């Protein structure tokens, strides 16, 4: 299973865990499984159409999935996935 790093605002959905192990052959499948394991987290990451929200970035290792195959980017068990939302406070 890949390791998914959870940003602080979403840890309320993951029982406070800053990283979780989730299976999935692609980012799309991994996000589906993440939402299945931690209900409610999915809608904070994807919009109603299933697209990644425009103020959220998903990285596989240090690669932005928009430069890979987007939600169809393949995921290996050894991969580390980071979810990075924009922080707007000042």
């Amino acid at each position, binding site marked *: 299973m890949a390791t998914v790093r959870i*940003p*602080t*605002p979403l840890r309320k959905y993951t029982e406070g865990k*800053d990283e979780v192990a989730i299976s999935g052959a692609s980012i799309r499948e991994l996000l589906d499984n993440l939402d299945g394991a931690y209900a409610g987290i999915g809608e*904070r990451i994807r919009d109603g159409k299933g697209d990644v*929200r*425009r*103020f959220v*970035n998903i*990285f596989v290792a*240090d690669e*932005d999935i*928009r*430069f890979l195959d987007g939600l169809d980017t393949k995921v290996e068990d050894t991969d580390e996935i*980071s979810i*990075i*939302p*924009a*922080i*707007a*406070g*000042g």
Partner: protein
Amino acid sequence: MGAALHTTFVVIGAGGLGCPALLGLVDAGARRITIIDDDTVDASNLHRQVLFGLADVGVSKAKAARAAVLGRARQPLAVTALDQRLRADDLAGLLEPAGAPVVVLECSDDPSLKFAVHDACLDQGIPVVVAGVIGWRGQVMAVDPRRRDRACYRCLFEAPPPPELAPACAAVGVIGAVAGALGYAMAVHAVDLAERGSTAGALTHFDLLAGSVRRLAPKPRPDCSACGHLRNNHGALP
């Protein structure tokens, strides 16, 4: 400082990020600073807005910040305080280069304004530092429109978060020292942008509760709404 001595640093927002950013700029030797904020100091601000004290409560933040930095500076320093609400429509005129080089530090807590300031700076070729802070976390990114081989803020984040998903510091809290760390980092980036722009294009993400600092250096997106046209029209610089 070299070129930074002749640079005007425009600090938008004299709050949790703006106060430490101003301290960093002044202590680095900045000679010209413009501070823009329409808010007044509240007692609840004082743990993170370190330029202010109880005597400043109720006073214009821009004016109180101006007095504080002038009192601290050891170098000749000209500070303009603009006690005004910045709107996207005002940006073009305000940021229009007036001969001297300008670097903008976007320190507001308004997500839409943050993106609007960033876009206006890119349109006018002005380097800008964008940051955000909440709780124990923060992000900072230097953007240099002269470096077309580097990503801008919108290459990374395509649009601002909606208000319901981007609570303000006043609503959910921020650790004062975290805002301090981010504000100082903004000053470092701003001085670098004035001098050479070597730090541009990378977002640094701090989680100071976890003790982690992560640097992300994305590629510029060819279809970026803010900087894609610069590359398409003029090509990437070496």
